[in-house]
C-alpha cells in the first residue's frame, strides 16, 4: 500500500524536498483533496450516514413497540419505508450512489419487517429463524446489488443464524466460555462457512475482478475466521472444554493455507499480519499456561522475551514483504 502523504513528509524530513514547497507537494501528490474530491466525499458520507441513521431509526422504532400505534400503522410505516427505499433504487439506478445506499437500507428494513411480524403476531419463532429468513429474503437483492457491503451483511446474518441455532440446539452442552460466546460446534460451523465464503470470493475475484476486486471485504472475512479459530485454540489451551486437543490440526492447516494463499498466490500483507498476531497470541498462551501453574518468575521473563522475539521476527518478515511491494511496479 502506497502512502503518498508519508512519502512526501519523509522527503521533507530527509531534506530532499524544500519545506516551503510542502503544501504545493501535498496538492500535486493528491494528498490535499480538491474541491471536486471534497464534494464527492461529502455526498458519499452524508448519503451513507443519513441512510444508516434512518434505517437504524426504523430498528429502534420497532424495538420500542409503541403501544399508541396500532399494528396496521406500524406495518404501514415499515412497509412504506421499504417501498420508498426500493423506489429510490429503481429511480436512481442500482449502481448509483443513492441506489446502493437505498438497497442496503431496504435490506435492513426487511429484517425490521420480519421482526415486526414476530412481535405483532407472536409467532414463537426462534431467533435463528428470524436471521435465516432475513438472509433468505434478501438473497436476490444481494446478488443483484453486487455490493461487497451487502454480501458481508448477508454472510453476517447467516453466521448469526448459525450461532443462535447451536445455542438453542446445544443448551445442555454449555460450558463457561460457551455461555459467554457460542457453542464450539456453532463456532466451527461459522468458521467453515466463512472460510468457504472467503475461498469463493478470492477465486471469483481472481477470475473476474470488477467489484469483487476490493480487498477490504475478504480481509474482514479472513479476520473474523482467524479470530474464531484462534479463540477455539485458546479455548483448548486454557482447558475450558473437556474434549480438547484436536483443534490444533485445523489451526495449523489454516495457518498453512493463509501462507499459501496470501504470500505465494495473492500478496496481502493485512491478512499475513493477522496471521502473525494469531500465532503470537497462541504461542503466548501455550507457553504461559504451564508457567502460570508453577508461578515461576524466570518463566515469565522467558515467555516475555520469546514473545518479543516472535513479534520482531514477524515484523521483519512482514516489512521485507512490504519493501518488496514498494519496489515492485
Amino acid at each position: 500500500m502506497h502512502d503518498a502523504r508519508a512519502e512526501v513528509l519523509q522527503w521533507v524530513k530527509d531534506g530532499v524536498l524544500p519545506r516551503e514547497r510542502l503544501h504545493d507537494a501535498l496538492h500535486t501528490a493528491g494528498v490535499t483533496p480538491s474541491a471536486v474530491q471534497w464534494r464527492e466525499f461529502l455526498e458519499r458520507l452524508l448519503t451513507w450516514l443519513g441512510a444508516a441513521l434512518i434505517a437504524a431509526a426504523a430498528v429502534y422504532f420497532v424495538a420500542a413497540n409503541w403501544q399508541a400505534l396500532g399494528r396496521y400503522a406500524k406495518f404501514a410505516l415499515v412497509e412504506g419505508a421499504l417501498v420508498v427505499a426500493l423506489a429510490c433504487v429503481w429511480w436512481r439506478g442500482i449502481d448509483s450512489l443513492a441506489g446502493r445506499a437505498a438497497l442496503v437500507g431496504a435490506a435492513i428494513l426487511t429484517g425490521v419487517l420480519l421482526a415486526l411480524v414476530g412481535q405483532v403476531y407472536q409467532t414463537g419463532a426462534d431467533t435463528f429463524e428470524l436471521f435465516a429468513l432475513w438472509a433468505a429474503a434478501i438473497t436476490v437483492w444481494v446478488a443483484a446489488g453486487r455490493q461487497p457491503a451487502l454480501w458481508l451483511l448477508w454472510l453476517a446474518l447467516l453466521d448469526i443464524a448459525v450461532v443462535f441455532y447451536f445455542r438453542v440446539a446445544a443448551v445442555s452442552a454449555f460450558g463457561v466460555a460457551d455461555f459467554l460466546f457460542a457453542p464450539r460446534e456453532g463456532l466451527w460451523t461459522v468458521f467453515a462457512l466463512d472460510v468457504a465464503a472467503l475461498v469463493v470470493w478470492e477465486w471469483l475475484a481472481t477470475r473476474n475482478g470488477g467489484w469483487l476486486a476490493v480487498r477490504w471485504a475478504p480481509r474482514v472475512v479472513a479476520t473474523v475466521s482467524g479470530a474464531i479459530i484462534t479463540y477455539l485454540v485458546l479455548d483448548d489451551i486454557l482447558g475450558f472444554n473437556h474434549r480438547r486437543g484436536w483443534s490444533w490440526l485445523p489451526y495449523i492447516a489454516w495457518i498453512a493455507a493463509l501462507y499459501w494463499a496470501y504470500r505465494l498466490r495473492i500478496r496481502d500483507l493485512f491478512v499475513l499480519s493477522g496471521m502473525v498476531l494469531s500465532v503470537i497470541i497462541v504461542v503466548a498462551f501455550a507457553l504461559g499456561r504451564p508457567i502460570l501453574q508453577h508461578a515461576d518468575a524466570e518463566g515469565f521473563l522467558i515467555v516475555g522475551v520469546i514473545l518479543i522475539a516472535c513479534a520482531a521476527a514477524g515484523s521483519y518478515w512482514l516489512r521485507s514483504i512490504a519493501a518488496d511491494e514498494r519496489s515492485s511496479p
Partner: protein
Amino acid sequence: MTLRAQLWERLASAGITHGPLPADTGDRSPWYVRAMLGIAAWLAAIFLLVFLGLVLSDVLRHATAAIVIGAVICSAAIVMLRIAGANIFVVQLAVAASLAGQGLIAFGLLEQWSDWLDAGPWIAIAAIEIVLIALARDYLHRVLSTLVAAVAVCLALRAIGWMTLAPALLAAAFVATQGNDVRSLARSAVWSPVATGLVLAMLLYFPFTAVWYESGFMRSTQIADLPPWLGAAALALVFVAAIARLLADASVAWTSRPGIAALLAGVVVALVAWPIPGIIIALLVLLLAFAASQRVLMGMAILALLYALGHYYYSLQSPLLVKAAALFATGVVLMGARFLVRLVVLREPEAGHA
C-alpha cells in the same frame, strides 16, 4: 516504475523536486503491521511486569521503590529506542520494557495516593506519558503513550466530576494535532502517532465508560458531576470549530456562501445529534482525516460510527422511541445537508474546498 518513483516524477515535473529519486529511508510499515506489534508488545509487557512483580516483590511493597524502578526501566527504554536504529528486536524489547516500567510507575503512584478515585495520580500518570511521547522516538510507543495519557486524563476528569467534558477535550486535542502549517506537518513524526492514539482513545471511550458504569466504578465519586448538556455543548463547539478550521485551511472565507453553508450545516448536525456524541466525534474525525488523506483514521472513524449506533440502543438515557426520533431527525438533516452540498458546490464550483 514504482508508485514512489511515479510520485517523485510528478513532483519533479511540477518543479517541486529536483534530481534523481532518493533512496528509500524511514519506517513506513503499514498500520496493521504496527497494530500487530502494538498488541504483541502489550502481551510481552504483561509477562515482563509479572516477572518484575515476582522478582522484586519485597521491594515493590514500597510505592516509592516501584516508581523509581519503573522510571529507571522507562529511561533505559528511551535510550534503547534512541540507539536501536532499525534493530526491530531491540525496538520491540524497549517498547515492551517501557510498558512494564509505566505499569510499575502507575502502580506506585496509585499506591502512594492510596485512593484511585483521586485526580492526583491520574494527572501525574498523564504528565509522565506526555514526557514519554516527547522523548521516546518510536511511532508505536507514541501511540500507546497517547492512549494511556488520554485514559488517565479521562479518569482525572471523572475524579473531579467533569467526565462529561472528556469527549470534547479528546476531540479538541485531536483537532490540535491536525495542524496544516508547514511546521506542524514537518513534525508529523510526533503528531501523527499522537493523533492515532487520540482517535483510538475516542474509539474506546464509549465502550469503556459503558463497562465502567455497568460495574459501578464510575458512580463511586462523591463529587457532583457537571450536567451532561455542558459536555454536549462543548463537543458541538469543537465540531463547529473544526469545520471553521477546515474552511480556513482550504482558503474558503467563513462569510462566503460555501463557508456559511458548511458552518450552518455543522451547527445543525451538532444540535440534532447531541444525544449521540459518538456520531459527532466520528464525523469530526472523518472530515479531518479526509482533509489530511489519512485513510487509517477514516477507517477508525467508521468503526466508531458503527459502535455509536449500536451503543446508543443500550444506553439508558432516554426511551427507545425518543432515540428513534433523534436518529431519524439526524438522518434527515444529513440527507438535507447532502442536497445543500450539491446546491452550493454546483453553483460555486470555483469556491474552494468546502
